[in-house]
Every structure is written in C-alpha cells, then in structure tokens.
C-alpha cells in the first residue's frame, strides 16, 4: 500500500488519526491543516509531520494526497468533503458526519458523483469483538435479532468532557443535538446493522441528571438520553449515560437462538446460550459457560496485547486498513453508505424529539 494522507482539523481527535494512519505500512501522513496556525503547527511538531498549512485548498494543491481525513467540527464537513473530492481525494470523516441529515445526503452524493470513496470513523464497530459478533450473527449462531441494547457512557470530567465544560461556546454546544449529537453515532451505528428498517418508530427522552458544577459550560448540558426504537422485526434500546460509573460501552444482541453481550471496554464477547440440559442442571451450567468465555477472552486479549494489537483505537486501525484497501482495490467501502444515512436519519429524528425548539 502506498497512500499519501493529509489531515484537516488539528484538534484533540486528530492525534488518533495521525497515530493510527501511520501504523499502516505504506501510509504516510504528508501534511496537516488547520485554520488556526498554532494548532496546525503543534500537531506537525509533536508528530514530526513534514508540512503544515492553514488553507485546505493550498494543502490539497501542494500535497496531492490520496486521502483527506476531515477532523474538523461537523459544521464544515460538507464543504470540505466537496473540496476534497474535487481535488481527487478520498475522504475519511470524523463523526458526527454533518449538522443535519440533508447535509449527510449531500455529502455522500458528492462523493459518489466524484467516484471517490468515503468512510466515517465508526471505530468501535471494527474492534475485534464487534467483528466477532457480526461473524456469529452472519453464521446464524444468534438466529435473527429480536432486540438490541446499545449503551454508551460518557465522562464529563474526562479529557473530552472537560473541553465542553470549560467552554460554553464550544462547537458541541452549537450542534442541534448538542452533546448527544457528538456521541450518538457510536450508540446507533452498533444498532443499525441489525435493524433493516429505513424509518423505524422511535421515542426519545432526555434529561439532566448531573448537578451544576463550577464550570459554567456544564450547567445547561442535558446528560442522559434514552431511545426506544421499533422496526418491523427488531426493536432496540439506545442509552447515552453521563452519570453511571464505570463509564461503559456495551452492546447486547438478543437473538432467536442465543444472546450475545459485547463489552467494548473489557473487550469481551460472551454468548448466553439456550440450555439443553433440563431443570436444575440447566441452571447449573451457564455460570461455568460464561466463566469459560471470559477466561478465553482474557487469554485472547493477552495475546493481542503481546502482538501489540490492544490499543485504545485498535478498531480505528482496522477500519482505516479496510478503507485504504478499498481505495487500492476499488471495492466497496467498509461501512455501507446506507448505514451512515440511517444513523444520521435516526439522530435527526431523536434530536427533534429532545430539542424540539432547536429544529427548523
């Protein structure tokens, strides 16, 4: 693989993009760009990127990258994507894809029209255990999906949360769905592959549970969201939770044959199996089965650690590898555009319910 990658947007998440793109053999991060020169400079210096720019058009013209990673706030994604594909680049986007669903549609249309490829950083879906879950599902181990529970926790005192709390003018506060819009991609993109409907019924409620803090930016943030989703065959429950500890990220798929539970933080996948033994014997066996699953998962994780595949963003490396390969081989991108659109549509409908005053 020989790809030149450039990055526009030098905020916090850009670090992960530089680090993970460079882990892939043959990929070179040739330049970074930010309207704010201080930010472009700091990223280039810290990672030894050869050149930095403050104008994306100038960077695209001078560097001719194969792929542009867009890690700016979502307000600029549509315009930058159009600029990138016009310059002959494929696009890797940080979530959220755009401010509103119509922009996501326009963005994907621009990529398709230019015959370029696009992917979005839905990295948890490319963690080993998530890929294993889909393998089990496709092999009919779970049967068909009856119900999905996707849970994502958040720490408003963490590295990313602090940025919101400290700054009432942070771009996240200006999103139609505010904090939820910055996080719900990761809750919903785990559900959508199991839900075939284009317009399922949804019911969303949001509220603020955390108390006020010394940081004025935090006091107006709604921090809990619950969403009920009902499709033709499958229902789902999506939870965003900023107050429970530990900060978890889990997915439970209830199938007609078996149920699978994925813990993205512990990096485990456990199968809850239908028991064939009768009565009390059938109740004796499950803890040993689950314990065995955890034991094997723990050993596999040790193996991944020893092979240096246990990074926080390991799923992002896998996703990037698949995306770059699809560019080289001219195959379908690793995330179907239909799924990106369905996630975006669900998000817009959720925000219309929880922030009705923010909708046009």
């Amino acid at each position, binding site marked *: 693989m020989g790809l030149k990658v450039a990055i526009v947007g030098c905020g916090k998440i850009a670090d992960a993009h530089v680090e993970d793109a460079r882990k892939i053999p043959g990929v070179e991060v040739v330049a970074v760009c930010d309207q704010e020169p201080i930010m472009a400079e700091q990223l280039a210096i810290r990672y030894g990127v050869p050149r930095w720019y403050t104008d994306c058009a100038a960077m695209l013209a001078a560097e001719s990258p194969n792929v542009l990673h867009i890690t700016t706030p979502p307000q600029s994604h549509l315009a930058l994507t159009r600029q990138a594909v016009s310059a002959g680049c494929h696009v890797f986007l940080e979530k959220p894809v755009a401010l509103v669903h119509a922009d996501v549609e326009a963005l994907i249309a621009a990529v398709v029209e230019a015959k370029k490829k696009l992917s979005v950083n839905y990295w948890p879906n490319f963690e080993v255990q998530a890929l294993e879950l889909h393998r089990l599902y496709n092999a009919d181990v779970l049967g068909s999906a009856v119900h999905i529970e996707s849970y994502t926790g958040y720490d408003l005192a963490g*590295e990313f949360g602090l*940025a919101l709390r*400290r*700054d009432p003018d942070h771009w996240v506060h200006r999103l139609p769905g505010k904090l939820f819009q910055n996080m719900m991609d990761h809750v919903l993109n785990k559900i959508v592959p199991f839900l075939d409907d284009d317009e399922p019924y949804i019911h969303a409620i949001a509220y603020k549970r955390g108390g006020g803090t010394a*940081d*004025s930016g935090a006091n107006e943030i709604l921090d809990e969201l619950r969403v009920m989703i009902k499709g033709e065959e499958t229902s789902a429950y999506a939870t965003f939770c900023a107050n429970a500890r530990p900060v978890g990220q889990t997915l439970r798929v209830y199938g007609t044959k078996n149920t699978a539970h994925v813990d993205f933080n512990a990096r485990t996948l456990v199968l809850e199996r239908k028991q064939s033994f009768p009565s009390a014997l059938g109740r004796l066996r499950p803890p040993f089965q689950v314990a065995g699953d955890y034991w094997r998962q723990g050993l596999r994780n040790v193996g991944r650690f020893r092979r240096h595949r246990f*990074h926080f963003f390991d799923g992002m490396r896998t996703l990037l590898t698949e995306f770059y390969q699809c560019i080289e081989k001219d195959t379908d991108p690793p995330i179907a555009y239909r799924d990106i659109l369905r996630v975006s549509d669900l998000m817009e409908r959720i925000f219309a319910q929880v922030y009705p005053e923010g909708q046009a």
Partner: protein
Amino acid sequence: MKILVTGAGGFLGVNVVERLLAHGQRDIRCFLRDKGKAARIEELAASNPGSSFEICYGNLKSKADCARAVADVAIVIHLAAGLKGAPAELFVDSVVTARNLMEALGARTEPPIAQTRVVLVSSFGVYGVVPLGRGAHVDESTPIEQCPERRDPYSHSKLRQEQLVREYQQKLGFELVVLRAGVIYGPGGGAFSNRVGIQVGPIFVHMGGNNLLPLSYVVNCAEAIVVAATHKDAAGQVYNVHDDEMPTAWEYLRAYRKHVKKLRSIRVPYFATRFLAGRLEGYHRRSQGQLPAIITRYKAAAAWGGNTFSNAKLRGLGWRPLVSTQEGMMRTFEYLRAQSMGK
C-alpha cells in the same frame, strides 16, 4: 493605572488580586471564564468599596472578549493557561488565547502600546535542562528547551506561549516581564508535582528522591508577580520564582504522609528511573503506543535530574517570601487533609 488579571478566578489568580490590593492597587479588572469561580473575587470587590474593581466575564478564545479585556489597561498580568487535558486543548488554552490577547493589545490605541506592560507567568518547564547534565544549576540565563516535543505537553505549550508573547513584544513594542514559576502550591492546589513522583494506580511512584523541590507558595508567587508587575526595573526581564527554602522531594513526601494521610509509595532511584524510562520508551516505540510513554529518559532527566535553582534575581528586585516554606506546607497539608477527610 488599570491592571488586567487574566485567569483571576483561578488558584493563583485570586491570590494575585489579593496581593495587588495589598500593594494599594485600586484599579483592577479581573477577567474570568467561569462564573462559578467568581465567589472569592466578588468577596474582594465587596470588601474594597473604594476601589475600581471590575469583574469581566469572557473567554480568551474570543477575540471580542480579548478586546474588552485589554481596553484601557496599562498592565496585563496574564495568568490564564491550560493546566491539564489533551495536548491540543493545552495549546488552545495557553497559546491561542495568548495570541488573541496580544492581537487585541496590538489593535488597541489607548494607552499607547509602548506604555503598556505585559507580565507573563511561565514555568520552569521551559528550561532546556537536559543537555546541561545531571545536577545543573537553573537560573534565568539557562537556555530554553530546544526539543519541546520531547517534553510533556504542558511544558511544550508553555514554551510556545512564551515564544509567541516574545514575538509579539518584538512586533508591538510593549514592556514584557516574564516570571518562570517553580512548583506553585498551597490551599486549593494539588498535592504533588511530578517532581515528587507520579501516581500509578494505587501506588505513588516516588522518583524525586533528594532532589530539591522548587516550591513557590501561592501567596509568595502572587507577591512576586505583583512586585515584578509594578517595578520599573523589571521591564524586559525574566525572573525565576521559588521560595528561599526548598525541601527535598523526599522531605515533602514524608511531611505529606505525616500530616495528610498515609500513602502507599515506592521509591525509585534516578538510575532505576532512567533504566525503566528507557524500557518504557522502547516498548512504546515497538508497540506503536500501546502503553503511553508517560516517562522517557528525556522527561526523566528534565523532571528528576537533580537541578539546583536560584531566585537571587527576584530577590534583587525586592521580593521577599511572605510565608515560610514550613508554614506554607502546614497550611497546604491542612487543606489537603480536610479534602481527604471530606471524600
């Protein structure tokens, strides 16, 4: 003479405002980002009715807020800076904000820029002590860091902030005073500088050993800032800020244990720290960052290289510590003990 204090609601900022009042300054603009941190400043405003005491809320990321902040001020005491968070966040909070403030000064007409003084509070982290070798003496003539990307992100951002303000000083021509502070401590602050050691899970890894700890009690540091801000001879100068008495890192840790709470710790001598840092550095490189390189040989040499320090230049300006190190530590430990029991 109106004085602007940025970051006035912070740990150091409140003390600087108090010291300004103690020095008879009555025309003060306190610039704060968070209204939640305004309580003490509001108390000071209420208890000094004769003074022109202005509380100005805003964000230095906003150019309009910066313009409001610098309007009519003759002295800018710039304390606001990022202390923790992701590297990008530190650069925004320390460097972008400083640039905005300098741009606002440049765009202003009154008072004339040549009659305006900027007092920048920087850090010992900007010194390039590693090439000087173990035990090097640090004073204001010590060269600044040449490899900032090899240091911790906080030091990197503070160095860039200082460089940027110097660039603007050259361009605009204001008076610049830089104070480089050691370890600022006191009630309201944290318990340990990484010069003492770092917490790794349940264990405190003590790597400071018998190195001198350049403590600066927050009141003494604030006093130094005010003395330098208002002294005519300070223009164009750099001052190191630390108290006269410096305990060793081990003495500080021992006193903490005695007066605050027990702490499970392991003492790692310098040669072992360097060895472990080298191993971690190598592992970090081989594993492509699977474990963070929180300690490298370079960082270890910068933090635990056994430097000695001098505040002679600051003393020459007339500054004297108002609180002894012993008293400062007792006040700090009393606060930390109360915090600890509160939890």
